[in-house]
Protein backbone atom coordinates (compact mmCIF):
# COMPACT_ATOMS: atom_id res chain seq x y z
CA UNK A 1 0.00 0.00 0.00
CA UNK A 2 2.75 2.40 0.95
CA UNK A 3 4.39 1.69 -2.34
CA UNK A 4 1.27 2.60 -4.23
CA UNK A 5 0.97 5.89 -2.44
CA UNK A 6 4.55 6.96 -2.93
CA UNK A 7 4.66 6.09 -6.60
CA UNK A 8 3.36 9.30 -8.23
CA UNK A 9 5.86 11.56 -9.95
CA UNK A 10 8.51 12.61 -7.44
CA UNK A 11 8.13 16.26 -8.38
CA UNK A 12 4.57 16.32 -7.07
CA UNK A 13 4.29 18.21 -3.82
CA UNK A 14 3.02 16.18 -0.88
CA UNK A 15 1.40 18.83 1.27
CA UNK A 16 -1.23 16.80 3.06
CA UNK A 17 -0.52 13.94 5.45
CA UNK A 18 -0.32 10.67 3.57
CA UNK A 19 -3.07 8.88 5.44
CA UNK A 20 -5.74 11.39 4.60
CA UNK A 21 -4.48 11.70 1.05
CA UNK A 22 -4.70 7.92 0.63
CA UNK A 23 -8.28 7.86 1.85
CA UNK A 24 -9.16 10.69 -0.43
CA UNK A 25 -7.65 8.85 -3.39
CA UNK A 26 -9.62 5.73 -2.56
CA UNK A 27 -12.87 7.68 -2.39
CA UNK A 28 -12.18 9.66 -5.55
CA UNK A 29 -10.98 6.55 -7.41
CA UNK A 30 -14.05 4.56 -6.50
CA UNK A 31 -16.38 7.43 -7.32
CA UNK A 32 -15.05 7.31 -10.88
CA UNK A 33 -15.26 3.57 -11.20
CA UNK A 34 -18.50 2.96 -9.40
CA UNK A 35 -21.13 3.99 -12.00
CA UNK A 36 -19.70 1.51 -14.48
CA UNK A 37 -18.62 -1.05 -11.94
CA UNK A 38 -22.06 -1.30 -10.32
CA UNK A 39 -23.63 -2.25 -13.62
CA UNK A 40 -20.71 -4.43 -14.57
CA UNK A 41 -20.78 -6.30 -11.25
CA UNK A 42 -24.51 -6.85 -11.31
CA UNK A 43 -24.99 -7.75 -14.96
CA UNK A 44 -21.70 -9.41 -15.87
CA UNK A 45 -19.75 -10.68 -12.87
CA UNK A 46 -22.73 -11.93 -10.83
CA UNK A 47 -24.27 -13.88 -13.75
CA UNK A 48 -20.82 -15.23 -14.61
CA UNK A 49 -20.25 -16.58 -11.11
CA UNK A 50 -23.83 -17.78 -10.95
CA UNK A 51 -23.27 -19.78 -14.13
CA UNK A 52 -20.46 -21.69 -12.41
CA UNK A 53 -22.64 -22.52 -9.44
CA UNK A 54 -25.67 -23.45 -11.56
CA UNK A 55 -23.63 -26.07 -13.40
CA UNK A 56 -23.79 -28.23 -10.28
CA UNK A 57 -27.50 -27.78 -9.63
CA UNK A 58 -30.56 -29.42 -11.00
CA UNK A 59 -32.86 -26.49 -11.56
CA UNK A 60 -35.55 -25.88 -14.11
CA UNK A 61 -38.36 -23.38 -14.31
CA UNK A 62 -40.77 -25.76 -12.54
CA UNK A 63 -38.79 -26.97 -9.53
CA UNK A 64 -36.53 -25.64 -6.80
CA UNK A 65 -32.77 -25.82 -7.21
CA UNK A 66 -31.16 -28.98 -5.90
CA UNK A 67 -27.45 -29.83 -5.57
CA UNK A 68 -26.58 -32.73 -7.86
CA UNK A 69 -22.78 -32.57 -8.03
CA UNK A 70 -21.47 -33.72 -11.37
CA UNK A 71 -24.72 -35.25 -12.60
CA UNK A 72 -25.20 -32.55 -15.24
CA UNK A 73 -21.83 -33.47 -16.68
CA UNK A 74 -22.50 -37.20 -16.76
CA UNK A 75 -25.82 -36.43 -18.44
CA UNK A 76 -23.88 -34.55 -21.11
CA UNK A 77 -21.80 -37.64 -21.89
CA UNK A 78 -24.95 -39.48 -22.89
CA UNK A 79 -26.68 -36.56 -24.59
CA UNK A 80 -26.53 -36.99 -28.33
CA UNK A 81 -27.43 -33.34 -28.93
CA UNK A 82 -24.34 -32.36 -26.99
CA UNK A 83 -22.13 -34.67 -29.06
CA UNK A 84 -23.55 -33.32 -32.29
CA UNK A 85 -23.21 -29.72 -31.13
CA UNK A 86 -19.63 -30.25 -30.00
CA UNK A 87 -18.69 -31.88 -33.29
CA UNK A 88 -20.35 -29.12 -35.31
CA UNK A 89 -18.63 -26.44 -33.24
CA UNK A 90 -15.25 -28.08 -33.83
CA UNK A 91 -16.04 -28.34 -37.54
CA UNK A 92 -16.95 -24.67 -37.65
CA UNK A 93 -13.79 -23.66 -35.77
CA UNK A 94 -11.60 -25.85 -37.99
CA UNK A 95 -12.93 -24.04 -41.04
CA UNK A 96 -13.45 -20.55 -39.72
CA UNK A 97 -10.11 -20.01 -37.94
CA UNK A 98 -7.60 -20.88 -40.70
CA UNK A 99 -9.69 -19.55 -43.57
CA UNK A 100 -10.40 -16.20 -41.92
CA UNK A 101 -6.77 -15.88 -40.91
CA UNK A 102 -5.55 -16.59 -44.42
CA UNK A 103 -8.14 -14.33 -46.04
CA UNK A 104 -7.39 -11.49 -43.61
CA UNK A 105 -3.65 -11.76 -44.17
CA UNK A 106 -4.14 -11.96 -47.93
CA UNK A 107 -6.35 -8.88 -47.94
CA UNK A 108 -3.92 -6.97 -45.74
CA UNK A 109 -0.94 -7.85 -47.95
CA UNK A 110 -2.83 -6.89 -51.08
CA UNK A 111 -4.03 -3.61 -49.57
CA UNK A 112 -0.80 -2.60 -47.84
CA UNK A 113 0.46 -0.55 -50.75
CA UNK A 114 0.20 2.93 -52.10
CA UNK A 115 -1.91 2.52 -55.17
CA UNK A 116 -4.76 4.75 -56.15
CA UNK A 117 -8.07 3.37 -54.93
CA UNK A 118 -6.64 1.34 -52.07
CA UNK A 119 -8.62 3.25 -49.39
CA UNK A 120 -11.80 2.33 -51.25
CA UNK A 121 -10.83 -1.33 -51.38
CA UNK A 122 -10.05 -1.30 -47.65
CA UNK A 123 -13.44 0.21 -46.88
CA UNK A 124 -15.14 -2.36 -49.08
CA UNK A 125 -13.34 -5.22 -47.38
CA UNK A 126 -14.20 -3.95 -43.92
CA UNK A 127 -17.84 -3.16 -44.49
CA UNK A 128 -19.25 -6.71 -44.25
CA UNK A 129 -18.05 -6.85 -40.66
CA UNK A 130 -20.39 -4.08 -39.58
CA UNK A 131 -23.31 -5.12 -41.77
CA UNK A 132 -26.18 -6.49 -39.71
CA UNK A 133 -26.23 -10.26 -39.38
CA UNK A 134 -29.82 -10.59 -40.42
CA UNK A 135 -29.10 -8.85 -43.71
CA UNK A 136 -25.94 -10.94 -44.18
CA UNK A 137 -27.80 -14.17 -43.48
CA UNK A 138 -30.76 -13.47 -45.74
CA UNK A 139 -28.56 -12.36 -48.63
CA UNK A 140 -26.19 -15.32 -48.36
CA UNK A 141 -29.07 -17.77 -48.01
CA UNK A 142 -30.28 -16.48 -51.36
CA UNK A 143 -26.81 -16.60 -52.90
CA UNK A 144 -26.62 -20.23 -51.73
CA UNK A 145 -30.05 -21.08 -53.16
CA UNK A 146 -29.56 -24.61 -54.56
CA UNK A 147 -31.48 -24.22 -57.82
CA UNK A 148 -31.18 -20.65 -59.03
CA UNK A 149 -28.72 -19.01 -56.64
CA UNK A 150 -25.75 -17.16 -58.17
CA UNK A 151 -23.20 -19.44 -56.52
CA UNK A 152 -24.59 -22.62 -58.04
CA UNK A 153 -25.14 -20.89 -61.37
CA UNK A 154 -21.46 -20.03 -61.33
CA UNK A 155 -20.48 -23.57 -60.34
CA UNK A 156 -22.60 -25.01 -63.13
CA UNK A 157 -21.11 -22.56 -65.58
CA UNK A 158 -17.61 -23.78 -64.77
CA UNK A 159 -18.66 -27.39 -65.20
CA UNK A 160 -19.76 -28.65 -61.80
CA UNK A 161 -22.68 -30.81 -62.87
CA UNK A 162 -24.22 -31.38 -59.46
CA UNK A 163 -23.29 -28.44 -57.23
CA UNK A 164 -23.88 -28.81 -53.48
CA UNK A 165 -27.29 -27.93 -52.13
CA UNK A 166 -25.64 -25.75 -49.44
CA UNK A 167 -28.03 -24.63 -46.70
CA UNK A 168 -30.63 -27.14 -47.85
CA UNK A 169 -28.29 -30.07 -47.31
CA UNK A 170 -26.99 -31.61 -44.09
CA UNK A 171 -23.47 -32.00 -45.43
CA UNK A 172 -23.08 -28.57 -46.97
CA UNK A 173 -24.95 -26.29 -44.57
CA UNK A 174 -21.94 -25.89 -42.27
CA UNK A 175 -19.50 -25.08 -45.11
CA UNK A 176 -22.02 -22.47 -46.29
CA UNK A 177 -22.11 -20.94 -42.81
CA UNK A 178 -18.30 -20.98 -42.68
CA UNK A 179 -17.97 -19.24 -46.05
CA UNK A 180 -20.44 -16.59 -44.94
CA UNK A 181 -18.63 -16.01 -41.66
CA UNK A 182 -15.21 -15.79 -43.35
CA UNK A 183 -16.62 -13.18 -45.71
CA UNK A 184 -18.03 -11.25 -42.78
CA UNK A 185 -15.03 -11.38 -40.44
CA UNK A 186 -12.01 -11.12 -42.72
CA UNK A 187 -12.17 -7.32 -42.94
CA UNK A 188 -11.93 -6.96 -39.17
CA UNK A 189 -8.78 -9.06 -38.91
CA UNK A 190 -7.42 -7.38 -42.02
CA UNK A 191 -7.36 -4.13 -40.04
CA UNK A 192 -5.28 -5.81 -37.34
CA UNK A 193 -2.91 -7.26 -39.94
CA UNK A 194 -2.56 -3.92 -41.72
CA UNK A 195 -1.51 -2.36 -38.42
CA UNK A 196 0.97 -5.20 -37.97
CA UNK A 197 2.40 -4.89 -41.48
CA UNK A 198 3.05 -1.21 -41.00
CA UNK A 199 5.36 -1.92 -38.08
CA UNK A 200 7.78 -3.92 -40.26
CA UNK A 201 10.72 -1.71 -41.26
CA UNK A 202 11.03 -1.31 -45.04
CA UNK A 203 14.80 -1.75 -44.70
CA UNK A 204 14.30 -5.46 -43.98
CA UNK A 205 12.76 -5.97 -47.39
CA UNK A 206 15.32 -3.83 -49.14
CA UNK A 207 18.16 -5.73 -47.53
CA UNK A 208 16.56 -9.05 -48.47
CA UNK A 209 16.13 -7.90 -52.05
CA UNK A 210 19.77 -6.90 -52.25
CA UNK A 211 20.59 -10.41 -51.05
CA UNK A 212 18.47 -11.77 -53.89
CA UNK A 213 15.53 -13.14 -51.91
CA UNK A 214 12.41 -13.60 -54.04
CA UNK A 215 8.89 -12.57 -53.00
CA UNK A 216 8.11 -15.98 -51.57
CA UNK A 217 11.29 -16.02 -49.49
CA UNK A 218 10.68 -12.48 -48.29
CA UNK A 219 7.15 -13.45 -47.23
CA UNK A 220 8.31 -16.45 -45.18
CA UNK A 221 11.57 -14.91 -44.03
CA UNK A 222 10.40 -11.44 -43.03
CA UNK A 223 6.64 -10.93 -43.15
CA UNK A 224 5.53 -14.07 -41.32
CA UNK A 225 8.04 -13.88 -38.44
CA UNK A 226 7.51 -10.12 -38.01
CA UNK A 227 3.76 -10.61 -37.86
CA UNK A 228 3.95 -13.30 -35.20
CA UNK A 229 2.50 -11.13 -32.39
CA UNK A 230 -0.38 -10.08 -34.64
CA UNK A 231 -1.01 -13.61 -35.85
CA UNK A 232 -0.99 -14.85 -32.29
CA UNK A 233 -3.52 -12.27 -31.23
CA UNK A 234 -5.71 -12.89 -34.29
CA UNK A 235 -5.60 -16.64 -33.69
CA UNK A 236 -6.68 -16.24 -30.08
CA UNK A 237 -9.51 -13.89 -31.02
CA UNK A 238 -10.67 -16.15 -33.83
CA UNK A 239 -10.64 -19.19 -31.59
CA UNK A 240 -12.76 -17.52 -28.94
CA UNK A 241 -15.07 -16.17 -31.60
CA UNK A 242 -15.44 -19.55 -33.31
CA UNK A 243 -16.29 -21.56 -30.24
CA UNK A 244 -18.95 -19.15 -29.12
CA UNK A 245 -20.58 -18.72 -32.54
CA UNK A 246 -24.31 -18.26 -32.11
CA UNK A 247 -26.13 -15.41 -33.80
CA UNK A 248 -25.02 -16.18 -37.35
CA UNK A 249 -26.23 -19.77 -36.97
CA UNK A 250 -29.51 -18.70 -35.38
CA UNK A 251 -30.41 -16.31 -38.19
CA UNK A 252 -28.96 -18.31 -41.08
CA UNK A 253 -29.87 -21.95 -40.46
CA UNK A 254 -31.29 -22.10 -36.91
CA UNK A 255 -29.22 -25.23 -36.42
CA UNK A 256 -30.71 -27.04 -39.41
CA UNK A 257 -31.32 -28.86 -41.59
CA UNK A 258 -31.98 -31.40 -38.87
CA UNK A 259 -29.28 -30.52 -36.39
CA UNK A 260 -26.47 -30.36 -38.91
CA UNK A 261 -25.44 -26.85 -37.84
CA UNK A 262 -26.42 -27.03 -34.17
CA UNK A 263 -23.54 -25.52 -32.16
CA UNK A 264 -22.72 -25.46 -28.44
CA UNK A 265 -23.82 -21.89 -27.76
CA UNK A 266 -27.12 -22.64 -29.45
CA UNK A 267 -27.60 -25.75 -27.33
CA UNK A 268 -27.02 -23.58 -24.24
CA UNK A 269 -29.67 -21.16 -25.51
CA UNK A 270 -32.16 -23.94 -26.26
CA UNK A 271 -31.68 -25.85 -23.02
CA UNK A 272 -31.47 -22.78 -20.81
CA UNK A 273 -33.84 -20.22 -22.23
CA UNK A 274 -36.26 -22.18 -24.42
CA UNK A 275 -36.49 -25.29 -22.22
CA UNK A 276 -35.78 -23.62 -18.87
CA UNK A 277 -33.15 -26.22 -17.90
CA UNK A 278 -31.02 -23.72 -16.01
CA UNK A 279 -28.66 -26.21 -14.37
CA UNK A 280 -27.95 -28.41 -17.36
CA UNK A 281 -27.48 -25.47 -19.75
CA UNK A 282 -25.00 -23.89 -17.35
CA UNK A 283 -23.02 -27.13 -17.25
CA UNK A 284 -22.75 -27.00 -21.04
CA UNK A 285 -21.75 -23.34 -20.74
CA UNK A 286 -19.00 -24.28 -18.31
CA UNK A 287 -17.69 -26.88 -20.76
CA UNK A 288 -17.74 -24.26 -23.54
CA UNK A 289 -15.80 -21.87 -21.34
CA UNK A 290 -13.24 -24.53 -20.40
CA UNK A 291 -12.70 -25.43 -24.05
CA UNK A 292 -12.10 -21.78 -24.96
CA UNK A 293 -9.80 -21.34 -21.97
CA UNK A 294 -7.78 -24.48 -22.76
CA UNK A 295 -7.29 -23.58 -26.39
CA UNK A 296 -6.23 -20.05 -25.45
CA UNK A 297 -3.75 -21.28 -22.84
CA UNK A 298 -2.29 -23.77 -25.32
CA UNK A 299 -1.90 -20.99 -27.87
CA UNK A 300 -0.12 -18.86 -25.28
CA UNK A 301 2.28 -21.71 -24.51
CA UNK A 302 3.07 -22.36 -28.17
CA UNK A 303 3.66 -18.67 -28.73
CA UNK A 304 5.99 -18.46 -25.74
CA UNK A 305 8.03 -21.41 -26.91
CA UNK A 306 8.32 -20.01 -30.44
CA UNK A 307 9.35 -16.58 -29.22
CA UNK A 308 11.95 -18.16 -26.95
CA UNK A 309 13.56 -20.21 -29.69
Amino acid sequence: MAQVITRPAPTAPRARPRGRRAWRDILVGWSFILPNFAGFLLFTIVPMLTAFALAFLKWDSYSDPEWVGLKNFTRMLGDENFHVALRNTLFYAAGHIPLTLAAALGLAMALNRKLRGVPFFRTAAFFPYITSLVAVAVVWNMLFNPTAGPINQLLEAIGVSEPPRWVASRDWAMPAVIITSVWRDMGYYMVLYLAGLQTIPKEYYEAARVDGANAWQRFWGITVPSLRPTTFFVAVMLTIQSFKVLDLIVVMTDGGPGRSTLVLAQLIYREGITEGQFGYSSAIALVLFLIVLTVTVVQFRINERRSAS
Partner: protein
Amino acid sequence: MTALSDAPPAGRAAPPGGSPGGAGRDRSAAVAARRVLAYVALTVMAALVLVPFAWMLSSSLKRDNEVFTVPIQWIPEELRWSNFVDIWERIPLLTYLGNSAFLSVTITVLQVLSGSFAAYGFSKVRFPGRDALFLAYIATIAVPWQAYMVPQYIMMQKADLTNTHLAIILLQAFGAFGVFLMRQYYQSIPDELCEAARIDGLSEYGIYWRIMLPLSKPALASLALLTFVNTWNDYMGPFIYLTDNDLWTVQLGLRSFIGQYDAEYAMMMTGATLSVLPILAVFLLGQRYFIQGIATSGLKG
Protein backbone atom coordinates in the same frame (compact mmCIF):
# COMPACT_ATOMS: atom_id res chain seq x y z
CA MET B 1 9.79 2.36 -59.15
CA THR B 2 8.88 -1.06 -57.99
CA ALA B 3 5.26 -1.86 -57.29
CA LEU B 4 5.70 -5.08 -55.45
CA SER B 5 3.13 -7.76 -55.39
CA ASP B 6 3.87 -8.49 -51.77
CA ALA B 7 3.92 -6.83 -48.40
CA PRO B 8 5.90 -3.62 -48.11
CA PRO B 9 4.20 -0.31 -48.83
CA ALA B 10 5.18 0.47 -52.39
CA GLY B 11 8.93 0.26 -52.32
CA ARG B 12 11.29 3.04 -53.23
CA ALA B 13 13.67 2.93 -56.15
CA ALA B 14 15.69 -0.24 -56.59
CA PRO B 15 19.14 -0.18 -55.02
CA PRO B 16 21.53 1.65 -57.34
CA GLY B 17 23.72 -0.53 -59.48
CA GLY B 18 21.57 -3.53 -58.69
CA SER B 19 20.51 -4.33 -62.23
CA PRO B 20 23.01 -4.91 -64.99
CA GLY B 21 22.72 -2.69 -68.08
CA GLY B 22 20.11 -3.71 -70.64
CA ALA B 23 17.69 -5.16 -68.11
CA GLY B 24 16.21 -1.68 -67.59
CA ARG B 25 13.50 -1.86 -70.23
CA ASP B 26 12.46 -5.39 -69.25
CA ARG B 27 12.29 -4.20 -65.72
CA SER B 28 9.94 -1.29 -66.32
CA ALA B 29 7.73 -3.48 -68.49
CA ALA B 30 7.64 -6.02 -65.70
CA VAL B 31 6.77 -3.29 -63.24
CA ALA B 32 3.91 -2.06 -65.40
CA ALA B 33 2.68 -5.62 -65.82
CA ARG B 34 2.82 -6.11 -62.08
CA ARG B 35 0.86 -2.97 -61.46
CA VAL B 36 -1.84 -4.07 -63.88
CA LEU B 37 -1.84 -7.46 -62.23
CA ALA B 38 -2.20 -5.83 -58.82
CA TYR B 39 -5.21 -3.85 -59.99
CA VAL B 40 -6.79 -6.92 -61.55
CA ALA B 41 -6.29 -8.81 -58.31
CA LEU B 42 -7.70 -5.93 -56.26
CA THR B 43 -10.72 -5.62 -58.51
CA VAL B 44 -11.47 -9.34 -58.42
CA MET B 45 -11.12 -9.23 -54.65
CA ALA B 46 -13.39 -6.22 -54.29
CA ALA B 47 -15.94 -7.85 -56.57
CA LEU B 48 -15.95 -11.00 -54.42
CA VAL B 49 -16.41 -8.93 -51.29
CA LEU B 50 -19.09 -6.71 -52.76
CA VAL B 51 -21.15 -9.22 -54.80
CA PRO B 52 -23.53 -9.93 -51.90
CA PHE B 53 -24.27 -6.21 -51.59
CA ALA B 54 -24.81 -5.91 -55.33
CA TRP B 55 -27.21 -8.84 -55.19
CA MET B 56 -29.08 -7.27 -52.29
CA LEU B 57 -29.42 -3.90 -53.97
CA SER B 58 -30.33 -5.31 -57.36
CA SER B 59 -32.92 -7.71 -55.93
CA SER B 60 -34.46 -4.99 -53.81
CA LEU B 61 -35.50 -3.24 -57.02
CA LYS B 62 -37.09 -6.25 -58.72
CA ARG B 63 -40.36 -8.15 -58.68
CA ASP B 64 -40.35 -11.28 -56.53
CA ASN B 65 -40.39 -13.55 -59.55
CA GLU B 66 -37.48 -11.72 -61.18
CA VAL B 67 -35.04 -12.35 -58.36
CA PHE B 68 -34.01 -15.90 -59.24
CA THR B 69 -33.48 -15.93 -62.96
CA VAL B 70 -31.08 -17.90 -65.10
CA PRO B 71 -28.86 -16.17 -66.04
CA ILE B 72 -28.74 -13.58 -63.29
CA GLN B 73 -29.96 -10.13 -64.18
CA TRP B 74 -27.65 -7.82 -62.26
CA ILE B 75 -29.45 -4.73 -63.45
CA PRO B 76 -33.22 -5.13 -63.31
CA GLU B 77 -35.10 -4.35 -66.52
CA GLU B 78 -37.52 -2.18 -64.68
CA LEU B 79 -36.43 -0.55 -61.43
CA ARG B 80 -39.21 -0.99 -58.92
CA TRP B 81 -38.56 1.85 -56.51
CA SER B 82 -42.07 1.24 -55.25
CA ASN B 83 -40.68 -1.63 -53.13
CA PHE B 84 -39.08 0.99 -50.94
CA VAL B 85 -42.46 2.65 -50.46
CA ASP B 86 -44.53 -0.49 -50.03
CA ILE B 87 -42.38 -2.00 -47.31
CA TRP B 88 -43.40 0.71 -44.84
CA GLU B 89 -46.97 -0.56 -45.11
CA ARG B 90 -46.10 -4.24 -45.02
CA ILE B 91 -44.26 -4.10 -41.70
CA PRO B 92 -44.20 -1.44 -38.95
CA LEU B 93 -40.73 -0.42 -40.04
CA LEU B 94 -40.95 3.01 -38.46
CA THR B 95 -41.57 1.47 -35.03
CA TYR B 96 -38.66 -0.91 -35.52
CA LEU B 97 -36.32 1.86 -36.62
CA GLY B 98 -37.43 3.97 -33.67
CA ASN B 99 -36.76 1.14 -31.21
CA SER B 100 -33.37 0.41 -32.73
CA ALA B 101 -32.43 4.08 -32.62
CA PHE B 102 -33.63 4.46 -29.03
CA LEU B 103 -31.68 1.44 -27.80
CA SER B 104 -28.55 2.29 -29.76
CA VAL B 105 -28.44 5.92 -28.64
CA THR B 106 -29.22 5.20 -24.98
CA ILE B 107 -26.70 2.38 -24.69
CA THR B 108 -24.04 4.36 -26.53
CA VAL B 109 -24.43 7.41 -24.28
CA LEU B 110 -24.33 5.33 -21.10
CA GLN B 111 -21.41 3.25 -22.31
CA VAL B 112 -19.35 6.28 -23.35
CA LEU B 113 -20.04 8.22 -20.14
CA SER B 114 -19.64 5.42 -17.63
CA GLY B 115 -16.76 3.85 -19.57
CA SER B 116 -14.67 7.00 -19.89
CA PHE B 117 -15.43 7.97 -16.28
CA ALA B 118 -14.28 4.60 -14.96
CA ALA B 119 -11.30 4.62 -17.28
CA TYR B 120 -10.13 7.87 -15.69
CA GLY B 121 -10.27 6.20 -12.28
CA PHE B 122 -8.32 3.22 -13.55
CA SER B 123 -5.74 5.28 -15.35
CA LYS B 124 -5.11 8.52 -13.45
CA VAL B 125 -6.12 8.00 -9.82
CA ARG B 126 -3.94 5.73 -7.70
CA PHE B 127 -5.53 3.72 -4.94
CA PRO B 128 -4.99 0.28 -3.48
CA GLY B 129 -6.76 -2.55 -5.25
CA ARG B 130 -7.14 -0.58 -8.47
CA ASP B 131 -5.03 -2.85 -10.63
CA ALA B 132 -6.60 -6.01 -9.23
CA LEU B 133 -10.01 -4.59 -10.07
CA PHE B 134 -8.94 -3.80 -13.59
CA LEU B 135 -7.65 -7.32 -13.95
CA ALA B 136 -11.16 -8.52 -13.13
CA TYR B 137 -12.44 -6.42 -16.01
CA ILE B 138 -9.90 -7.91 -18.39
CA ALA B 139 -10.52 -11.45 -17.19
CA THR B 140 -14.21 -11.19 -18.06
CA ILE B 141 -13.39 -10.37 -21.67
CA ALA B 142 -12.09 -13.93 -21.99
CA VAL B 143 -15.40 -15.40 -20.82
CA PRO B 144 -17.84 -15.77 -23.70
CA TRP B 145 -21.15 -14.03 -23.12
CA GLN B 146 -22.88 -17.20 -24.26
CA ALA B 147 -21.62 -18.87 -21.08
CA TYR B 148 -23.61 -16.59 -18.79
CA MET B 149 -26.59 -15.55 -20.90
CA VAL B 150 -28.82 -18.00 -19.02
CA PRO B 151 -28.15 -16.60 -15.51
CA GLN B 152 -28.64 -13.10 -16.96
CA TYR B 153 -31.97 -14.23 -18.32
CA ILE B 154 -33.00 -15.73 -14.98
CA MET B 155 -32.09 -12.46 -13.22
CA MET B 156 -34.12 -10.41 -15.64
CA GLN B 157 -37.02 -12.81 -15.33
CA LYS B 158 -36.95 -12.56 -11.52
CA ALA B 159 -36.79 -8.77 -11.76
CA ASP B 160 -39.77 -8.89 -14.12
CA LEU B 161 -37.78 -7.06 -16.76
CA THR B 162 -38.12 -9.47 -19.66
CA ASN B 163 -39.91 -7.95 -22.60
CA THR B 164 -38.66 -4.44 -21.77
CA HIS B 165 -36.06 -2.24 -23.39
CA LEU B 166 -34.62 -1.66 -19.95
CA ALA B 167 -33.34 -5.24 -19.81
CA ILE B 168 -31.29 -4.73 -22.97
CA ILE B 169 -29.99 -1.36 -21.80
CA LEU B 170 -28.91 -2.67 -18.39
CA LEU B 171 -27.18 -5.68 -19.90
CA GLN B 172 -25.28 -3.81 -22.58
CA ALA B 173 -24.50 -0.35 -21.25
CA PHE B 174 -21.87 -1.27 -18.65
CA GLY B 175 -19.59 -3.54 -20.56
CA ALA B 176 -15.88 -3.87 -19.97
CA PHE B 177 -15.09 -2.87 -23.54
CA GLY B 178 -15.64 0.87 -23.07
CA VAL B 179 -13.50 0.99 -19.94
CA PHE B 180 -10.81 -0.97 -21.68
CA LEU B 181 -10.71 1.15 -24.84
CA MET B 182 -10.76 4.46 -22.98
CA ARG B 183 -8.13 3.41 -20.46
CA GLN B 184 -5.89 2.41 -23.32
CA TYR B 185 -6.17 5.94 -24.65
CA TYR B 186 -5.78 7.71 -21.30
CA GLN B 187 -2.57 5.76 -20.67
CA SER B 188 -1.07 7.59 -23.63
CA ILE B 189 -1.83 10.98 -22.07
CA PRO B 190 1.09 11.97 -19.81
CA ASP B 191 0.43 11.99 -16.06
CA GLU B 192 2.33 15.26 -15.81
CA LEU B 193 -0.61 16.99 -17.46
CA CYS B 194 -2.95 15.88 -14.68
CA GLU B 195 -0.34 16.67 -12.06
CA ALA B 196 -0.02 20.21 -13.40
CA ALA B 197 -3.78 20.63 -13.35
CA ARG B 198 -3.92 19.37 -9.76
CA ILE B 199 -1.34 21.93 -8.73
CA ASP B 200 -3.46 24.58 -10.42
CA GLY B 201 -6.25 23.52 -8.12
CA LEU B 202 -8.47 21.56 -10.47
CA SER B 203 -10.34 18.68 -8.81
CA GLU B 204 -10.12 15.18 -10.29
CA TYR B 205 -13.59 15.62 -11.76
CA GLY B 206 -12.49 18.91 -13.25
CA ILE B 207 -9.46 17.25 -14.81
CA TYR B 208 -11.66 14.51 -16.27
CA TRP B 209 -14.20 16.93 -17.65
CA ARG B 210 -12.01 19.81 -18.83
CA ILE B 211 -8.81 18.05 -19.84
CA MET B 212 -9.24 14.34 -20.45
CA LEU B 213 -12.57 14.38 -22.26
CA PRO B 214 -11.58 17.08 -24.77
CA LEU B 215 -8.21 15.36 -25.33
CA SER B 216 -9.76 11.96 -25.90
CA LYS B 217 -12.25 12.96 -28.58
CA PRO B 218 -10.93 10.44 -31.13
CA ALA B 219 -11.20 7.58 -28.64
CA LEU B 220 -14.67 8.72 -27.59
CA ALA B 221 -15.70 8.77 -31.23
CA SER B 222 -14.33 5.26 -31.75
CA LEU B 223 -16.13 3.93 -28.72
CA ALA B 224 -19.39 5.69 -29.59
CA LEU B 225 -19.41 4.44 -33.17
CA LEU B 226 -18.48 0.86 -32.30
CA THR B 227 -21.10 0.71 -29.55
CA PHE B 228 -23.75 2.26 -31.75
CA VAL B 229 -23.17 -0.17 -34.60
CA ASN B 230 -22.95 -3.18 -32.29
CA THR B 231 -26.23 -2.31 -30.64
CA TRP B 232 -27.94 -1.52 -33.90
CA ASN B 233 -26.86 -4.88 -35.32
CA ASP B 234 -27.41 -6.92 -32.16
CA TYR B 235 -29.73 -9.81 -32.76
CA MET B 236 -29.49 -12.15 -29.77
CA GLY B 237 -30.26 -9.56 -27.08
CA PRO B 238 -33.57 -8.41 -28.55
CA PHE B 239 -34.28 -11.97 -29.71
CA ILE B 240 -34.03 -13.34 -26.17
CA TYR B 241 -35.76 -10.51 -24.34
CA LEU B 242 -38.30 -8.79 -26.58
CA THR B 243 -41.52 -10.62 -27.38
CA ASP B 244 -43.86 -7.69 -28.09
CA ASN B 245 -43.93 -6.59 -31.70
CA ASP B 246 -44.07 -2.96 -30.50
CA LEU B 247 -40.68 -3.31 -28.85
CA TRP B 248 -38.87 -5.03 -31.70
CA THR B 249 -35.75 -3.69 -33.34
CA VAL B 250 -35.10 -3.57 -37.07
CA GLN B 251 -33.15 -6.83 -36.90
CA LEU B 252 -35.97 -8.71 -35.20
CA GLY B 253 -38.60 -7.21 -37.45
CA LEU B 254 -36.67 -8.10 -40.57
CA ARG B 255 -36.01 -11.64 -39.38
CA SER B 256 -39.68 -12.16 -38.59
CA PHE B 257 -40.70 -10.79 -41.98
CA ILE B 258 -38.35 -13.26 -43.66
CA GLY B 259 -39.81 -16.09 -41.61
CA GLN B 260 -43.39 -15.20 -42.50
CA TYR B 261 -43.11 -14.34 -46.17
CA ASP B 262 -40.32 -16.55 -47.35
CA ALA B 263 -41.13 -16.17 -51.05
CA GLU B 264 -41.19 -12.38 -51.12
CA TYR B 265 -37.58 -12.25 -52.12
CA ALA B 266 -37.57 -8.71 -53.43
CA MET B 267 -39.25 -7.29 -50.35
CA MET B 268 -36.80 -9.13 -48.09
CA MET B 269 -33.93 -7.50 -49.92
CA THR B 270 -35.62 -4.12 -49.69
CA GLY B 271 -35.86 -4.57 -45.93
CA ALA B 272 -32.25 -5.74 -45.72
CA THR B 273 -31.09 -2.72 -47.72
CA LEU B 274 -33.00 -0.34 -45.46
CA SER B 275 -31.56 -1.98 -42.34
CA VAL B 276 -28.01 -1.58 -43.65
CA LEU B 277 -28.32 2.02 -44.88
CA PRO B 278 -28.08 3.74 -41.46
CA ILE B 279 -24.97 1.71 -40.67
CA LEU B 280 -23.43 2.60 -44.02
CA ALA B 281 -24.05 6.29 -43.33
CA VAL B 282 -22.57 6.12 -39.83
CA PHE B 283 -19.62 4.11 -41.10
CA LEU B 284 -18.77 6.42 -43.97
CA LEU B 285 -18.93 9.44 -41.68
CA GLY B 286 -16.67 7.98 -39.03
CA GLN B 287 -14.59 5.35 -40.79
CA ARG B 288 -11.31 6.64 -39.40
CA TYR B 289 -12.52 6.21 -35.82
CA PHE B 290 -13.75 2.69 -36.44
CA ILE B 291 -10.39 1.57 -37.69
CA GLN B 292 -8.54 3.37 -34.90
CA GLY B 293 -10.82 1.86 -32.28
CA ILE B 294 -10.20 -1.62 -33.57
CA ALA B 295 -6.48 -1.10 -33.91
CA THR B 296 -6.15 0.28 -30.35
CA SER B 297 -8.41 -2.14 -28.56
CA GLY B 298 -7.13 -4.98 -30.68
CA LEU B 299 -3.41 -4.69 -30.78
CA LYS B 300 -2.41 -3.20 -27.49
CA GLY B 301 -4.60 -5.50 -25.44
